[in-house]
């Protein structure tokens, strides 16, 4: 017997057992209508009476717009930089060797860069006065996109006017509600915000732990088996960083990629740090692991670190990237990048393409600092050896507040001793608040004596501060 007949049968049974079933139905209907009308009245559709509003208003004590902020919070008194940010930088009047800012290739103060930016001002003015859609697309933007695509060996690139917004706009352009997004738990804040905006189903796996990801995926497979139809429609993504800003570790890309293929995940990599710094030509983690870039669905990057200007970009196949021109919020709704910054970025790419040895010397510097850090016994560094960004922690774990205090004291002492090192600032709203650390950003422009100086100064300051505290 098929289901239709079953239905007829059951109605027949009902009819026989309840003689006045229609009366019952009518009563239910009337009750429902009464309830519906009553509900309409009680609902918040009508404007409440004046007295009621006044009474409630008199009672209501709204919170103040912002809570009182601590008077001597360190964020209120940041350090002043009074020079170009290059190999050396003047911090609070001290001329320091710069290991604090992310100019890994030492390009930000290059004369060529500045001259090309100046030429752009002379041609285009400073601002672009409009979003990309509305006459804000200047020819240098197109040139930059073309150059980035060529440099990375992909079909298309798209540029944004701000690095943070690139990542946080690109992710929600693809990841939507109900999509499954697997994310490394230590991803940077911009990715976290992008995930928030996507409102997807986010699953965090342990930092750089492919096995943990596999477990999650297997668990998901179990769930999918129960809802086969639903599971087939759900998009799955893996979002990782090339080199993690918050830890300095490199992602285990080959293992992750194997999982992506097995479980049909699309993979997005944030290469803000690794772009321009890792791999033979500085093309990032794909080059480093010798993986064809076509395996990666999208790579997001920043022009603010190695490239030395301001902005961000995404590269990948046209099928993927072109979508952002209509759906990337930070692309469509924001004024385009000032042409002078785009122009400077093109010059940066020129320099990187024509001087292979820059990336090589960055690698050497990173390695020698990594080795040198081992000599400082009170500190430890777990970051990836070739990474230009290193997080140095206190060997002895202490309370967060104490660690913070000690590390800032060390950083300040270093600045007094002409070495610019900083303690990265985080907000409480991070998914996992990173452990306080000293952040070293290594530049290609350092030479051996600089490295020696930096290591010695760091060692001296650390010993001084820590022994003083004990």
């Amino acid at each position, binding site marked *: 017997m098929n289901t239709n007949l079953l239905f007829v049968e059951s109605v027949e049974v009902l009819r026989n057992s309840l003689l006045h079933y229609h009366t019952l139905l009518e009563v239910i209907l009337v009750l429902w209508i009464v309830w519906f009308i009553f509900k309409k009245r009680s609902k918040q559709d009508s404007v*409440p009476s004046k007295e009621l*509003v006044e009474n*409630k208003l008199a009672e*209501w004590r*709204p919170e103040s*717009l912002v*809570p*009182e*902020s601590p008077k001597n919070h360190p*964020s*209120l008194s*940041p350090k*002043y*930089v*009074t020079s170009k*940010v290059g190999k050396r930088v003047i911090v609070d009047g001290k001329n320091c060797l710069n290991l604090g*800012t992310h100019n890994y290739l030492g390009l930000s103060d290059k004369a060529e860069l*500045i001259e090309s930016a*100046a030429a752009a*001002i002379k*041609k285009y*003015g*400073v*601002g672009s*006065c*409009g979003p990309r*859609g*509305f*006459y*804000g*697309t200047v*020819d240098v933007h197109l040139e930059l996109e073309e150059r980035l695509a060529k440099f990375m060996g992909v079909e298309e690139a798209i540029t944004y*006017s*701000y690095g*943070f917004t690139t990542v*946080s706009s690109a992710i929600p352009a693809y990841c*939507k509600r109900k999509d499954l997004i697997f994310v490394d738990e230590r991803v*940077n804040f911009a990715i976290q915000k992008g995930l928030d*905006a996507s409102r997807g189903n986010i699953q965090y796996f342990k930092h750089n732990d492919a096995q943990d990801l596999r477990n999650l995926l297997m668990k998901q497979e179990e769930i999918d088996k129960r809802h086969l139809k639903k599971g087939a429609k759900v998009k*799955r993504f893996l979002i990782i960083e090339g080199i993690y800003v918050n830890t300095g570790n490199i992602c285990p890309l080959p293992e992750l990629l194997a999982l992506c293929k097995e479980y*049909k995940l*699309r993979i997005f990599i944030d290469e803000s740090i690794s772009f321009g710094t890792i791999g033979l030509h500085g093309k990032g983690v794909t080059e480093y692991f010798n993986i064809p870039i*076509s*395996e990666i*669905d999208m790579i997001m990057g920043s022009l603010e*670190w190695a490239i*030395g200007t*301001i902005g961000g970009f995404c590269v990948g*196949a*046209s*099928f*993927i990237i072109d979508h952002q*021109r209509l759906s990337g919020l*930070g692309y*469509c*709704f924001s*004024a385009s990048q000032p042409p002078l910054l785009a122009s400077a970025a093109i010059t940066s790419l020129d320099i990187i393409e024509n001087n292979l040895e820059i990336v090589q010397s960055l690698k050497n510097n990173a390695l020698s600092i990594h080795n040198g850090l081992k000599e400082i016994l009170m500190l430890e560094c777990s970051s990836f050896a070739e990474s230009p960004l290193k997080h140095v922690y206190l060997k002895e774990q202490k309370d967060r507040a104490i660690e913070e205090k000690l590390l800032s004291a060390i950083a300040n002492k270093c600045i007094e001793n002409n070495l610019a090192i*900083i303690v990265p*600032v985080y*907000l409480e709203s991070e998914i996992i608040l990173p452990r306080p650390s000293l952040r070293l950003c290594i530049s290609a422009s350092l030479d051996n004596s600089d490295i020696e100086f930096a290591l010695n100064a760091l060692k001296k300051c650390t010993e001084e501060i820590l022994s003083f505290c004990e």
Partner: protein
Amino acid sequence: MFHESSSVIFLTLFSLNNSLSSPRKSISGDFSGAGLSSTMTVKGRYQLEWSKSRSRSISIISINNIFINIVIQHRNLLQSAHGSTKMDLQKTPRSKESFEKVPFITAALTYLGFYFLMFLGFINQLFFVPKIATEKNREGYAPLYDNFEKFYFKYVYRRIRDCWNRPICSVPGARVTLKNRVTHDNGWTFQFTGTETQCINLGSYNYLGFAKASGKCADESIKTLRKFGCASCSTRLELGNMPIHDELEKLTAKFLGVEDAIVFGMGFATNSLNLPSLVSKGCLVLSDEKNHASLILGLRLSGAVIQIFKHNSVKHLEECLKKAIVFGQPKTSKPWKKIIIVVEGIYSMEGSIVHLPEMLELKKKYKAYLYVDEAHSAGSMGKHGRGVCDYYGIDPREVDILMGTFTKSFGSAGGYIAGTKALINHIRIYGHAHTYATSISPPVTQQIITSMRIIAGEDGIDGKKRIKQLARNTRYFRRRLNQIGVIIYGNEDSPVVPMLVYLFSKIGTVIRTLTSRNIATVGVGFPATPLMEGRIRFCLSAAHTKEQLDYVLSHIEEIADILGLKYSRKPRTTTKIEYSDSEME
């Protein structure tokens, strides 16, 4: 082949609408014969244009891609009815603001045309599969894009893709040089022809004319660039804090007349990354339905409950406030932690100016807070160019949070938030952008400082002259458009002038025709606007001369006749409109 069939049908629709609108011409004193002849010209012209560009897909309808997602999201949030907005505004007419209703026939034709185009696109999709833009090596994966979205962008929007994202290769000043491009495959791809067209620029937000490649602003920016470089490669809290940033913040606070200000490298990020530090779960946000994407994104990230009120409707806002006070949070009925009203100074798609005095009254009465996004109004409104507060003569300290961007009037990039010391300190400590995003580039900062000093009158009367010139241009241009008989939206004093063309076909055609006459403008259609409110937007600038505006107006007048844009049924003056400073005329 399908393009052709579609064009024939749309040609019929197009001329039908045109001939239907022609009786109205008698109001303006035209003879009906003239109306008839103009219909004929349309056909002839349209066919001519068609045969000329057979290889190119003629756009029939217009979609503004850009706001698609956010508009849909915004709508989903509360399903606010767009249609009722206009009616509401008409109930409470303002002397200076106008939102004329769409003629019934036009509305019907617009809907019809839109569905027709969707239908044709659908047939097109069945038969014509493009060779480009497919995903490789992803068999068996869940499709990346929503089917409708994909269809819409490929088969509807593509037809008029050439009207947006046009590359320029000059300063976006009073004039702008476009790089010409052609498409040989119906809008899938574009190729540069190697030629350039110089146009009068009514598309860029260059309100005070500071987009210049020479002069004081450019010189000082270059000087700063040479001294401090392009960028700091660091955030403000780490090693990206330069004295020039402090200088800009102090200057901004002083310029706006508030205690303190904080600046960021991107206007969009100013909204989307700072709102989450101001509102949180348990707060209610009352947001205008026409608010910008960045505000909506920021609010969405904050986790607060968002309620949308009808565009610029003080009455609806008050209703929402009353309900919020009485009913409190949903489910728990606990009172809200705080209520924040989020509005914009000038709405960039509507050309309307916020009803600030009334909103301030409500805010005070109901103990709410007010956030005003002055992206378009900072610099361009008010006697001193200090934004909407200046325009209404209101003490800026009465507004809790003043936000604005430097992209528009200041010819630079970036944004600011200004208000009390306590507010700004809070953002310095808890704001996402201040903590994680790179500091604003020194030459860009310098451009703002120099232009703001000029506007504030620290360097003589140049700034005053610009503000006056913009106000004069705005009034003249708006009055002349009214006289021509096209429907324009918004406030008389707003330099953003949307001209309603309703039909999708007309958005594309108007933009292309104007470009062929060396005028660069912007078109906006569904889904950025309601389905039947396709429009052309003009942004005026202090850099425009009367001659340039006259040139533009004469062409608009001409094509308004040819394309049937004279929808307005308001009485028109026949007296000559003076180009003068006077407020009254």
